[in-house]
């Protein structure tokens, strides 16, 4: 049995490599907000209140482009609706927590943290303090997101655009799913999602980000049926 501290530390270490994408993305996110003419306090407050990379950028771009508040808010909701899927997966492992703890831990569920903690959960189902892994990944992501958006706000986009660090974002998610390429059923689901995302990329409210997972999960259900 692992102690709380050991599991927490494992969470930090599991998510640490993803800082290669989180930090440059956070800097860009902070810098764009200032470039678009929003006040520094407002841009930074989003990192605490919304705490969701892509949705923060889209929100500010839409508002500065003259879109209504309704469209900006709806887009944030649509982009972040994928968290519903993460929550549905995580609920199995967080079931025993008190309601208050569930409310608190939910705030720090982010893509990379969900991905790494979910991998740990699948391999260590019997550990009593599982959720400390999610706290480890979530708190690490939260702190680095705050620091990197803040430095983007203060220093501007000091990482030159030419080096293309934005490319680290798809790479970080490749690192997350690459081992599942060993399984044909997962490969089918991944390709379905990827192709759908390109097909629906221009759908309103950036909804490709939730349309493609839904299509891919339907395909997953079909695959499961065929496997039987």
């Amino acid at each position, binding site marked *: 049995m692992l102690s709380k501290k050991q599991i927490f530390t494992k969470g930090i270490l599991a998510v640490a490599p993803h800082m290669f994408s989180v930090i440059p993305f956070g800097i860009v996110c902070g810098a764009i907000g200032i470039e678009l003419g929003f006040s520094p306090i407002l841009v930074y407050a989003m990192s605490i209140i919304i705490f969701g990379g892509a949705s923060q950028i889209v929100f500010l771009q839409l508002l500065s482009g003259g879109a209504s508040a309704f469209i900006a*808010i709806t887009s944030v909701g649509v982009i972040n609706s994928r968290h519903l*899927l*993460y929550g549905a997966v995580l609920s199995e492992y967080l079931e025993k927590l008190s309601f208050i703890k569930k409310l608190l831990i*939910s705030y720090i569920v982010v893509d990379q943290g969900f991905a790494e903690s979910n991998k740990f959960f699948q391999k260590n189902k019997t550990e009593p303090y599982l959720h400390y892994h999610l706290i480890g990944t979530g708190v690490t992501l939260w702190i680095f997101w705050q620091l990197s958006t803040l430095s983007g706000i203060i220093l501007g986009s000091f990482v030159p655009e030419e080096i293309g660090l934005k*490319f680290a974002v798809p*790479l970080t998610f490749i*690192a997350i799913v690459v081992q599942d390429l060993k399984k044909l059923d997962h490969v089918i689901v991944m390709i379905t999602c990827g192709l759908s*995302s*390109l097909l629906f990329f221009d759908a309103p409210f950036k909804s490709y980000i939730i349309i493609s997972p839904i299509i891919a999960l339907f395909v997953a259900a079909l695959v499961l049926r065929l496997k039987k």
Partner: protein
Amino acid sequence: MTWTSIIIAGIITYFTRMTMVALVDRDLLGEKIKAVLAYVPSAVFPAIIFPGIFINDYGTFIEMNDPKIFGAIVAILVGYFSRNVIATILSGLFSYWIIIFLI
């Protein structure tokens, strides 16, 4: 106005995170749904990966000889065999940089 919008967006975002964890009883989900949920990472992350590689900043498709495709292939191969997250990300970035800066 902008502040109000941010707060509403923040509350909605928080609900996307919290609803399934705290409000929905897991027993309400049938066995079939639980089995499908095992595919969530594979069903979600390619929607971030594919556009990140194949669509450029202006929302159009890249050329088939774009260095990002090469970088992604290298990252997939290194990741598949090394099982190492840092190696995956750095191999992709470095192979991408080698093409855009040296060739």
